[in-house]
Structure formats: C-alpha cells, structure tokens
C-alpha cells in the first residue's frame, strides 16, 4: 500500500540520462513512443499461469527495462494518440497491454490518495461554519484537490471511450476475428506465416472474455430465431460459400485522415524509409497498388489516404490518424 509508483520511477529516471523533468523535449502534444505501444511482444511481463502480475512483479520488471517513455505525461499523450487512432481506424488495432496496466495502476493509486486527502478534509470542515460562503477558507487548500479530481475524470473518460470503441469493433468483426483465429491455428505449423498476430496481442483478457461470451449469445439468438429453420447447408453463420460472404472484413481501403509525424525518436537520419526531398524536407514514399501511383508523404502534412497504404507506418508510430 505504501508503494508510490511515481517516486520509484522518478528514482529510476534520475539514473538514466534520457528523461529531463523540467521541460521534457520528448513530449509535445503529438510525439509518442508509439513503436513500443503496438509492439508488445518485444518485452513481455513474466506472468505465470495467465494470472495478472502483482504490482511488485511489474515494478521489478520496469526496473530492469527502463525507458524514457514511462513517465506519466508520456503515457498519457501516447494514450490520447492511441485513442484517436482507434476511433479513426477501420480495424481493431493491437491492445497496449503494458500502457494500460500502468495507467490503471496510477489511477488506483490516485484514488487512494484522494480518499486520504478528503478524509482529512472531513476532519477539518466539521469545525467551520457554513452560513457564509466557503470560498476563501477552503479553496486555496482545495486547489490541488480540484485539479486532481478534474484530471481523474478526464483520464477515466478517455479510457472509457477507448474501451467502448474497441468493444464495438469486436462486435462488428466477431466473425472475422474467429476466422483469423482459426486460420492461425491451422498455420500453426507453418512458422513462416507471422503476419497474423495472435488474438491475445490484439485483445486484452477482458476483451477476449467479452468476445467469446458475446458471440455465444448472439449465435444462440440467431440460431433460435432463424438459423434452425433453414436447410442444413445454410445454417452456418459464417457461410462463405454462398453468393456473398457472410463474414464482414474491415474495410481495408477506407479513407482516413492522417498526419505525418515522422520517426518517434526524432532521429531522421536513422529511419530507412525516410527520404530527403529536393527542398530539404523529409518524406515517406508509399504506393497505392490499385492505381500504381507513388505518393510522397511529407512530414508535418495532412493527407487523406486509403488505410491499407499507410497501415504499416501507423503501427510504427510514424503517422497518426486525426
């Protein structure tokens, strides 16, 4: 209960030279360390038996895996980017396991802290009279409290919106998810096919549970009302043999608005995909396959493009959806 995450992280960060607490150059509104956001596989928590890691496990792991992107501010701005990406993208993006765990831990921490503070308040205010306005007496002391509460509401809102967006996409694409899961199981022996991410990376544990239970419910409803009355060949819900496939795939060609932010660590020279244009500006080059067209995406510009063309750049954090 006495564990204060921020203090521990602050201690860790003073050892590494990467984080500067006064005016952190890494955090403007948009830049994020998104490459670690979507690639959870690179550093996995040592979780045994599928149970959640205890807080001390996680802290130990953080100790050994320090990176500058763990600061609260960074996490929050990364999360906002994730939220915006998820809302705009036509498909379900990978779940940011570590980020969410950290944020939830921080929230729980903050709630406890606020409770302690407000209990102190209760002790104080019982002695003040309340016939005049409370303002001058309490407000100076209450200011941090106000700010913390307001901030908490904001974080809760974003997380809530994010999760609900994902749940609605899970509902929409539940047949499709099932299909890729089955494909993945079939290809299990084929080690070369790594392009499909396992479902555990894309969904959180809760989301998996939701997905399974919900699809069960819906299938039952459909079975009872219509499917069982049909001839056996048509009784499948994921029938692809008819004239139209019943599985809804995400629309890979949906047009999205993107902003090109460039490599997340701002090292323009190290990015192999980045080219230098004639006017000195950097750009990425992408190809629209159907039109056989090359497009140059300059850093800092806004474009409207098909999702499939920029998907890889998105997962690397080099463009964001707006």
């Amino acid at each position, binding site marked *: 209960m*006495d564990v*204060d995450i*921020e*203090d521990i992280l*602050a201690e860790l960060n003073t050892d590494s030279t990467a984080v500067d607490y*006064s005016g952190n150059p890494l955090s403007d*509104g948009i830049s994020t360390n998104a490459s670690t956001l979507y690639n959870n596989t690179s550093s996995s928590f040592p979780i045994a038996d599928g149970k959640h890691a205890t807080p001390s496990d996680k802290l130990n792991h953080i100790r050994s895996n320090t990176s500058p992107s763990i*600061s*609260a*501010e960074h996490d*929050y*701005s990364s999360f*906002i980017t994730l939220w*915006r990406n998820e809302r705009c993208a036509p498909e379900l993006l990978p779940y940011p396991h570590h980020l969410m765990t950290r944020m939830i831990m*921080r*929230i729980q921490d*903050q709630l406890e*802290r606020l409770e*302690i*503070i407000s209990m102190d*308040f209760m002790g104080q205010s019982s002695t003040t009279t309340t016939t005049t306005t409370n303002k001058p007496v309490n*407000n100076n*002391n209450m*200011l*941090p409290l106000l*700010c*913390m509460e*307001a*901030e908490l509401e*904001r974080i809760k*809102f974003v997380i809530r*919106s994010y999760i*609900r*967006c994902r*749940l*609605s996409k899970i*509902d*929409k694409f539940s*047949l499709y998810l099932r299909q890729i899961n089955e494909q993945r199981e079939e290809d299990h022996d084929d080690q070369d096919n790594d392009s499909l991410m396992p479902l555990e990376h894309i969904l959180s544990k809760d989301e998996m549970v939701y997905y399974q239970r919900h699809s069960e419910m819906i299938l039952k409803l459909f079975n009872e009302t219509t499917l069982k009355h049909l001839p056996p060949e048509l009784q499948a819900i994921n029938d692809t043999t008819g004239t*139209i496939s*019943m599985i*809804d795939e995400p629309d890979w060609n*949906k*047009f*999205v*608005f993107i902003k090109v932010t460039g490599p997340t660590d701002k090292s323009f020279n190290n990015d192999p995909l980045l080219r230098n244009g004639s006017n000195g500006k950097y750009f990425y080059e992408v190809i*629209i396959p*159907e*039109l*056989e*067209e090359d*497009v*140059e995406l300059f850093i*800092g*510009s806004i*474009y*409207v*493009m*098909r999702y499939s063309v920029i998907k890889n750049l998105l997962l690397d954090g080099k463009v964001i959806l*707006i």
Partner: protein
Amino acid sequence: MSLPRRLQETFSPEEVQFIVENQKIKIFPRITTSKRRSGNGSHSSNSDDDMSRWRMLTMDGHELENMIVMKSTEVTLWLALLLKQQSKCNIIIPEWLTVKGLDLMLQYEKRNIQRFSALPWDWLVVSEILFKQAADDFNDPIYELRNRIQDLKEIRQMKVLQGLKNLNESHMQLDNLGLLEINELRPFIVEVMDKLRQIHASVLDTTETEPQDYDDDKDIGMGTSISSNRDTSSSGLPNAMSF
C-alpha cells in the same frame, strides 16, 4: 452498440474540445506554490503537506508545484481554465490571436487562394474557449478579434468548397487545416472518396484500359458545406449482411 452510432464516424465537437484542451498554454499564476522541498520522495503523513502536494496523473507536477506569482509558466489548457475559473491565474493570449496576428493570416489567405494559412490546428477551438472564459486577458478588443476570426472562417470555408472539385479516388493533401474543420468534413469526404474508388474499380474491371494519369500533389483543401451527413443511412442495415 457499445459506441453510439454518432460517435462511430467522427469525433463529437465536445471530444474535439477535449483533445484541444490537452495542449499547453502559458499563464501568469496569481498564487505561489513553490516551497522549499525538504527531501525527494519522502512521504509525509502530515495532512497539511499532503494537501499542498500536487500529484498529477497526466503531467509531471513540476510546473504546478513551482508556480511563482506572475512568473510565466506553461500548463495544459484545461488546467489553465480551471485555475482561471478559480481566479488563480491569468492566461497569456497566444501570439496569433491578436489583431496583428490575425490580420497577417487574413492577408495570406487572400493572397494564396490555393493554400491555407499556417494557423495552429486548434485555432477555432482555442479562440472560442478563450473568448468565453478568458475575456479579460485580451489586450485587443474582443469584437475586433471575433470579426477577424469570422472572416478567416468564411474564407477558409469558401476555399474548401471550391476544393471539392478535386475530390478523387487516390488521395489528397490538406496542409494546415484545423482539427474542427477536418472533423466536420470527415464523413462527407470519406464517403465520397470511397464511392469514387468503387466507381473507379468497376471501370477498371469492365473496360480493362489503362488508368489515366493522376497528378500527385493536390495542394488544396477540400471542403464542404458543413451540414454534416451523420444520418446518411446509406450504410443502411447492420453489417452482417450485405445486400
């Protein structure tokens, strides 16, 4: 659905405001919170200390803990607005939101019909918020600023409308367009470009001719008359069946 339909296509204006409120802005605090700190990371169970300690989740508390009266510092917009509501700070109006700044932008807009001036991406929202909640912090009279903002809005909308001609099925480049403007246009543009893409694809299928050459950079904003087409129920029935 878990997410209401109106939120599935685009962000609501309140959400756009939320996004904008996460940006930073400069303020003059009216109180001092900076104290000599005795030691880092030491827990104090003394309730007085706890209450003056700022422990923020989304920002590091450094700026807040070290506010000194009238020494300018930078915080996020939502926090600045909260402090302002409590009369604990004055907001420093950004450079571009002055009569001079806006006049420069207007000139650029008038001179360059094909481009948009380099207004910050949150200009509409920030200006509206500050007019409402920080009216006394402005040096210039607000009605003048409002007039200019209105002019800018109209000019840009006009350009956007004209740029509609350039909607195509490959891509568009829209530098310097503000977030609220993009948000309004999004459902319309996405749908139109989608249809164009489908038409183009079917043309390719049937005629088997080479596709025509397309210009690459289209440096224009597109635009729309902004009745947002939220209830275009051409997306009709839910997705399980396509007809």
